[in-house]
């Protein structure tokens, strides 16, 4: 039971990192990235290949996963420099499919549809499965706390304000003297890097990755997490990820609660629930459980007229 709870915790952590990565590009800067699965795969493969064929330490693999995905994000953002909204969404979705096809067909590098197995994990094999799960959960929490703190500082600082200005109206931001193009590139690359980090940690945890694991379905889960949690808000992303995993896993126990359902119906109910939640979240809480608060001038440290008393 403890292993199971720990593994749910790790899954929440990975989903939360993915949600944070999407949050930087979409929630803060307003750039839709439907290519999430592609960057997730890029990070997972970079780290897996580096630590299996390359025999590098896990830590370096994870860093490489971040760098590769961020580099891919920078490249894609540069290519699509002038695209906005729907057009950017279509290109990123295409990118994600291209990555999957590359992983499927370049067998010399990625072992193709067989996938890469035996990816090392920290102390895997030396610990019992329970202790390994707990250790990984601990690492995951540390990574998550660091990322959340860094992103919060970023989002609440002048940099984050500039990103939000671009999201709300990029012409106004440009008129105010913000380097809109460069900021968009940076935000997209940073978001992609976080997706890659999640991918690397995913691979080392499960010890196996294959192209089938990076289907667009997971993108839907993450957008649900972010919409439920509150786009633009870092804690909201983490909370949303926890909520989505709780729903995905909690619905397994539906047949204990509603005994009349057949096994196939339970399976269908689980998938319906996810879709229904997405619709309900968009309809009733479009700004999420933890909405982004409009910033107040007093919190921004700007000088405000104040009466002396």
């Amino acid at each position, binding site marked *: *039971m*403890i*292993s*199971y709870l720990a*593994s*749910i915790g790790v*899954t929440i952590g990975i989903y939360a990192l993915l949600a944070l990565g999407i949050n930087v590009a979409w929630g803060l800067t307003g750039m839709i990235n439907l290519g999430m699965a592609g960057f997730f795969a890029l990070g997972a493969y970079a780290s897996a290949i580096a630590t299996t064929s390359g025999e590098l330490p896990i830590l370096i693999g994870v860093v490489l996963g971040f760098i590769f995905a961020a580099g891919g994000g920078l490249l894609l953002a540069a290519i699509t420099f002038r695209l906005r909204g729907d057009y950017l969404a279509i290109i990123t979705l295409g990118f994600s499919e291209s990555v999957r*096809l590359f992983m*499927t*067909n370049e*067998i010399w590098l990625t072992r*193709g*549809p*067989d*996938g890469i*197995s*035996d990816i090392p994990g920290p102390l895997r094999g030396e610990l019992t*499965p329970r202790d390994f799960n707990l250790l990984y959960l601990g690492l995951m929490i540390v990574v998550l706390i660091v990322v959340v703190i860094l992103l919060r500082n970023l989002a609440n600082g002048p940099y984050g304000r500039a990103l939000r200005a671009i999201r709300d109206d990029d012409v106004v931001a440009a008129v105010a003297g913000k380097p809109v193009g460069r900021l968009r590139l940076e935000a997209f690359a940073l978001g992609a890097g976080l997706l890659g980090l999640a991918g690397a940690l995913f691979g080392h945890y*499960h*010890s*196996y990755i*294959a*192209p*089938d*694991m990076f*289907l667009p*379905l*997971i993108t839907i889960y993450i957008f649900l997490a972010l919409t439920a949690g509150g786009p633009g808000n870092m804690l909201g992303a983490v*909370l949303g990820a*926890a*909520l989505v995993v*709780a*729903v*995905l*896993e*909690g*619905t*397994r*126990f539906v047949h*204990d*609660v509603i005994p009349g359902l057949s*096994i*196939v119906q*339970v*399976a*269908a109910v*689980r*998938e319906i629930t996810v879709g229904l939640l997405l619709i309900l979240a968009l309809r009733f809480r479009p700004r999420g*459980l*933890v909405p982004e*608060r409009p910033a107040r001038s007093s919190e921004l440290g700007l000088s405000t007229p104040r009466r002396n008393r």
Partner: protein
Amino acid sequence: MTRRLTMKRRQLLATGAIGAGALTMPRLALAQSDGPIMLGTLTPLTGVGGTYGPSMRDAVAGVIDSVNSAGGVLGRQIELVSEDTQTNPEAAVRAARKLVDVDGVSAVIGTWASSVTTAVAPVCWEGGVMVYTVSGSDSITQLPHEGYIIRTQPNSQLQIEVAAQFMVDQGATRVAWIGPQTPFAESSIAILGDVAGEGGASMDSLIYEADRTSYRSEVDQIMTGDPDFLMLGGYAADSTVLLRDLFQAGYEGKIIGPAYAVNASVLDALPNDVVEGLFTWEGTPDVTSGAYARVQEILGVDVVDPYSAQTYDHANLAILAMAAAGSSTGADMRGGVRTISQGDGEIIDNAVDGLAILADGGSVNYNGASGPCDFTRIGDITGTQFLFRQIQDGQPVDFETV
């Protein structure tokens, strides 16, 4: 003041979310040594494999019912827990962790897609749980599983060898393989090339992109080599398009495809002219066996699909392995399964008979619905029968059994 209120509401929301998360896990049952023995099915109930998973699961449920009404195994009843792979390795891993850690199953039965099996296998063997699978990819039994994987599906190497020999025996001189990128693509081409070479035939191959609506340029390309016997390597959706395009391009040679790739839906979708004379082959269940008849009865169907026949065998093998090992742990069942699946014991075709013989101190050799169920050291099946069929007037007609 406003700010303090916001914080409170946030805390309330956070607490609420955590509470809701806790409520979704009402059952905190752990593996117990005195309660029922747990068996898990992990079949695809949704996704691409969703057409097979439900009956695969029902076949297992049928075996468990019959064993329970005959008194159970090791003096305990058996309880079935079923999870859905969603035909997706990521979802399947989460499901497997639940089966292993929460339900404490002794075995996980019925993983279907090869990538799913490869993904869940480490979760199972690290947790000391056996995996019984119907996946065909060669790499699965080559994993460092230490005996925890048993596979009843002939691996792709054996399947291709048998079909390649058939093509040569039918007088092929220029064979060609055409299919999408799958775990079997590379090995299929290599094996077909070897067998064709030994038979004095030339060999050509083409890997295409799956799920396209037209394969005309691929067909043109493969026909430049003027092949006289083509092997299809894709799934049903591709085969429909490819067969149509081959027909329109005027291909006159022979064609063979795996039965899952040229199934009833393909035959329905295409005119009889297009599929006339086409060969199919599959590892066939032993349709004359008593076990097969029992699966027919459990599922209420005339024709049992190969996967449900295999999961019926999985459940019987797992239960007999427990009895032989005198234990329901995966570590002990690894040895037990080989003592009851092969050897000189009395031949049986169901667990209830086998349990009675084992209880009297006898030994058994289980032959099931899918075939003799004998396994190599790494868990691959041997001795599967293959059925070749030919399409005549839109209907598959038995051609020969190998």
